[in-house]
């Protein structure tokens, strides 16, 4: 059947199960925008900045497990996507970025709004292509989506010139993907799995570190079975939060720079680390040469290039986590680690990291805990980047997979607001809370308009501490309080919300926190709460840069007693 490139694009997206495109138009995309109305099943959400489209697509992918699609015009539209693509790359989110390109006869001539976006995005995409022939478009879309979603997921980009969108050509949806060089290894090597089970069956102080790979592979039941059968405590990475229920007796929080002291201690003193779908990022390991010094390491990951990259593995297993754990679980024996687990419980008692201290002023930790209590934990938490992000990780307890959406690898301020849009669009029946700092909120504040236009029921909490808090904390603790460039002049956030047509309240006192949260939840449509919080609160525990995981700083002499 003869179709234009734009029609082929829409048809292919629908055939691949895509329902939503987060986009922003421009000159070279006009043929596509002229075609969209013919495909009403394909929902187009108009963002206010292309970075927002990318973050929304990224978060959509994380909560649904399906590919997120973002769309931008050539030149500045395409470059505006770059941060969002990098974010998806570092956090392994399956994303298709589509960019318009100047017509083929202009390419390479510095035409108006021409940028070599495939060149720019080589290091931050799993795969990208400039499609020069409409007849090849369907094949490239199929390949790109397949690559993005399979193996270790990641962003892919297709750059499509305007004339390719307009050209009519015979359309056949390709039955197969033909990529001889791309073979994600799905099953672990049996001999390695045997070695792993031998270790698990004999060691005394094992610990599991579960990362985002468990979420990606949806290996929740398998992870639980492994932990329960062998009685292995589970620590997650920051992005692994939620892949193992935090209310489970074997859950010991998350590791790393702001991870729980007991989690870091457990790893440091363990004799076996079972690392599952994680990549020993420097924020997670502290000084890597002193990471888990007594432990042997089993490293399970679908990406062979992660194995041995930061840390040598004694037992490397390359494969899809679900498949690997299914085989592994058959080979492990029932174990008990009574003294090891009671040691961990002891550490948990000495190093409480998730208890809100008694304090007059308004603590961000208290607010997060209140959100947990009001929602009963049944909400998706989307965060921006900074102190509030760490508190959102620490003071909320996550029992549901993929209920925590945060920018881990890239640490992108401005992620929160657009990501909450993607999360809500992907999971319309879930409550969504977006936790932002006063700094990061202003980086993508314009997406408030998108929320209103799409009438998205999103609860926004802006933690107004008047500082770029996380940087201020480093200046306080590492640069002897030499504050510079971190204090914020802020607008009235409630008035900002109102200007966009969003209801909001400002909260200064503890007693007003809960009613405000309840009001936000009761309200249909977006709602913003500006919490005016303690300005110089610090995130603890804190493993200073250059230190090992057990050299964490804790809150100095508490001004009040600790309260559950």
């Amino acid at each position: 059947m003869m179709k234009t490139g734009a029609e082929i694009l829409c048809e292919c997206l629908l055939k691949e199960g895509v329902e939503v495109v987060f986009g922003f138009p421009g000159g070279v995309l006009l043929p596509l925008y002229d075609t969209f109305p013919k495909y009403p099943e394909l929902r187009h959400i108009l963002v206010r900045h292309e970075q927002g489209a990318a973050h929304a697509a990224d978060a959509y992918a994380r909560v649904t497990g399906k590919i997120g699609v973002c769309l931008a015009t050539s030149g500045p539209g395409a470059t505006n996507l770059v941060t969002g693509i990098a974010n998806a790359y570092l956090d392994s989110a399956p994303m298709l970025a589509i960019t318009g390109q100047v017509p083929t006869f202009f390419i390479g001539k510095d035409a108006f709004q021409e940028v070599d976006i495939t060149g720019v995005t080589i290091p931050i995409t799993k795969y990208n292509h400039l499609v020069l022939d409409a007849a090849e478009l369907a094949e490239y879309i199929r390949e790109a989506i397949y690559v993005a979603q399979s193996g270790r997921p990641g962003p892919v980009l297709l750059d499509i010139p305007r004339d390719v969108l307009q050209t009519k050509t015979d359309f056949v949806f390709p039955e197969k993907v033909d990529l001889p060089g791309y073979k994600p290894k799905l099953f672990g090597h049996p001999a390695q799995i045997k070695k792993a089970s031998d270790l698990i069956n004999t060691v005394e102080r094992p610990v599991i570190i579960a990362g985002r790979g468990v979420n990606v592979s949806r290996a929740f039941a398998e992870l639980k079975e492994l932990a329960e059968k062998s009685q292995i405590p589970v620590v997650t990475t920051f992005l692994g939060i939620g892949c193992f229920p935090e209310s489970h007796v074997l859950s010991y929080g998350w590791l790393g720079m702001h991870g729980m002291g007991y989690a870091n201690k457990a790893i440091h003193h363990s004799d076996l680390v079972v690392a599952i779908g994680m990549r020993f990022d420097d924020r997670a390991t502290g000084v890597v040469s002193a990471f888990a010094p007594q432990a042997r390491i089993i490293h399970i990951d679908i990406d062979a290039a992660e194995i041995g990259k930061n840390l040598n593995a004694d037992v490397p297993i390359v494969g899809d986590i679900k498949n690997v754990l299914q085989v592994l679980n058959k080979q492990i024996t029932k174990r008990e680690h009574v003294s090891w687990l009671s040691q961990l419980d002891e550490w948990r008692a000495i190093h409480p990291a998730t208890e809100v201290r008694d304090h007059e002023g308004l603590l961000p930790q208290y607010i997060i805990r209140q959100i947990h209590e009001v929602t009963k934990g049944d909400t998706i938490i989307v965060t921006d980047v900074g102190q509030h992000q760490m508190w959102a990780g620490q003071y909320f307890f996550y029992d549901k997979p993929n209920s925590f959406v945060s920018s881990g690898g890239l640490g992108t301020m401005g992620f929160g607001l657009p990501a909450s849009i993607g999360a809500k669009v992907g999971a319309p029946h879930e409550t969504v809370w977006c936790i932002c700092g006063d700094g990061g909120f202003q980086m993508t504040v314009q997406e408030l308009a998108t929320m209103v236009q799409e009438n998205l029921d999103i609860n926004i909490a802006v933690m107004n501490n008047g500082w770029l808090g996380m940087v201020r904390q480093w200046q306080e603790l590492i640069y002897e309080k030499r504050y510079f460039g971190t204090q914020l002049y802020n607008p009235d956030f409630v008035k900002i919300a109102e200007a966009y047509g969003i209801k909001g309240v400002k909260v200064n006192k503890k007693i007003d926190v809960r009613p405000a949260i309840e009001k936000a939840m009761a309200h249909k449509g977006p709602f913003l709460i500006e919490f005016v919080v303690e300005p110089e609160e610090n995130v603890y525990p804190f493993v200073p840069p250059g230190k090992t995981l057990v050299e964490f700083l804790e809150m100095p002499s508490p001004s009040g007693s600790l309260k559950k």
Partner: protein
Amino acid sequence: MTRKHILVALVQDKPGVLNRIASTLRRRNFNIESIAVGHIEIPHLSRMTITLEGDDAKVEQVRKQLDRVVEVIRISDITYENPVEREMAMIKVKASASTRSEIIQIVDIFRANIVDVSPDSLIIVAVGNQEKVETFIELLRGFGIRELSRTGTIALPRGGAGPLTIDESKPLRHVVEHVLTEEEENLPNW
């Protein structure tokens, strides 16, 4: 141990592949000593030979990262497989009536060829492993080199099937419903 490594790769003949490979190596701070690319006996496939300096573990790490590139079908480090290595150099060297015969002697010793003669210079083609080619160039330096061009190393492992040998009985196709064969599942190491 840091030493020269030879990586050979079979890649799909598509635009951007060389870019991606170079970009990956640059990110890991490798200096590419040489890179040689050419078509092979199977249509739409090319073979690359990359030589670079590096420590074994780091090179293995980057090899795995290069293997991630979608268009890379196979990539192997053949440094320790005693490969046959060759490169070709074309050297335009000054040659006067008085130096010409001396140059010809050197050319003979190295089994190089003179491919062009003009009144005041010669173009010489030399083939050999990197060491031989470099010694040859050193010897000619004294006469005055006007232009020099080298292809970079290409290499094949000795003996039967090499790591990039394609088994013609098995199609090089990869389809969506890819099920690992027993052989693939039992790849060495992991």
